[in-house]
């Protein structure tokens, strides 16, 4: 869909869904028409307290760096087949900008895939290895190591025509109420960001820091883990890791975050 039509579509979708408890929800989403002078997008980093911001900035104490370090080891580890390093060389060069382009359309499997799935594909097709379980420590480590090579770079999701439909489905799902609490992502993260849910400030929904160290998890997690948490929070049945539904949401969120700088590995409450 043409970029200019997107805000209008969103407004129509919201109206079609019906009454929402917020006011001006449709108008709020029109703010996504991005111009440098009115970019209202904010990273969750800005909502954190000073000590957490300091924790994220400091590579010597950011807990996410444990996974980056492990990823660095895995990058050059080879058992009987080539290591990542053998084909790609030093990650600092070859992986620069890569994480900023995912999810991407994969011709081989004819579907959109995220970075973890891409790493698994490499393992199967080029390293004669079995795929790691999605969200495993190994995949999170490699994903973190690849993502940090794009730290500071702007989100640049693919403009491949085949991704359009994926992003569109993600956009529809984002506006869709779900779960026993019957809430949509948009209702909290587009219409009520900055307000409090219990003791926590609701952030906007830009996935700028994944994989991230979330204090709630006391560990590292991908965007899909966070999406599943939200679904659990509204008492919805969770989509499985790697499901097209979750990849579509990831693709939509990446498209909305276009141009925002990556912060991986981020720290969040």
């Amino acid at each position, binding site marked *: 869909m043409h970029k200019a039509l997107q805000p209008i579509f969103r407004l129509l979708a919201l109206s079609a869904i019906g009454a929402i408890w917020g006011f001006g929800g449709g108008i709020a989403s029109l703010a996504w028409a991005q111009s440098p002078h009115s970019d209202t997008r904010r990273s969750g980093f800005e909502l954190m307290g000073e000590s957490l911001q300091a924790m994220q900035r400091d590579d010597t104490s950011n807990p996410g760096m444990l996974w980056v370090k492990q990823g660095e080891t895995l990058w050059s580890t080879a058992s009987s087949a080539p290591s990542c390093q053998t084909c790609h060389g030093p990650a600092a060069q070859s992986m620069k900008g890569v994480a900023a382009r995912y999810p991407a359309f994969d011709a081989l499997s004819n579907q959109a895939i995220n970075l973890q799935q891409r790493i698994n594909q490499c393992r199967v097709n080029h390293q004669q290895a079995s795929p790691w379980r999605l969200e495993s420590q190994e995949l999170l480590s490699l994903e973190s190591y690849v993502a940090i090579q794009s730290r500071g770079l702007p989100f640049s999701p693919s403009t491949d025509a085949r991704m359009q439909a994926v992003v569109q489905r993600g956009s529809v799902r984002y506006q869709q109420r779900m779960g026993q609490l019957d809430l949509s992502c948009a209702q909290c993260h587009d219409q009520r960001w900055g307000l409090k*849910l219990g003791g*926590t400030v609701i952030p906007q929904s830009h996935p700028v820091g994944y994989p991230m160290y979330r204090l709630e998890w006391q560990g590292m997690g991908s965007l899909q883990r966070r999406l599943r948490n939200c679904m659990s929070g509204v008492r919805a049945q969770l989509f499985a890791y790697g499901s097209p539904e979750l990849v579509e949401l990831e693709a939509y969120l990446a498209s909305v975050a276009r141009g925002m700088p990556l912060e991986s590995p981020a720290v969040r409450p």
Partner: protein
Amino acid sequence: MNTNSPHYSPEFSRPESPTRRRVLGTSVALGASLLGGAVWTRPAYATTEEMTAAIRKFANGAAVMPGRVRLAISPIVDNGNTVPVEISVASPMTAADHVTHIALFNERNPQADVVNFYLNHRAGRAHVATRIRLATTQKLVAVARMNDGSFWSHTVEVIVAIAACLEGDEV
């Protein structure tokens, strides 16, 4: 409050400045109004008495005097899972005059002890840092033991905003 020490009182907490006291007061009021008071009732965790007992055990009954120790922690905490703390003690850290232990105690976690650090004159500076868990709003007490057997402390009150979404832990 049962304590034999004339010098030590766990109730002793010095807000650093009138501004801080005001911020704390406003935050408590705001928090209570937002949450309808639900979070501010005291849960059945450890008690102040247990913290006092743990401190007395650490000090072996000796007097624990306020001062010389600085417990640095954010007065309002986003999430009680990982709270950075720094403890520093004014000491030349020479063989003749140094800190031997720094211990941290809490009032309302299930267990009063948090961490004990053992130092000697080779440390150069009596300055340690770690990250801790806080179950709820409570007092924290850092206690330092000097090589001359004296004990010093600093007490800080911390407000903890607990994350509301009780998200499942399934990965």
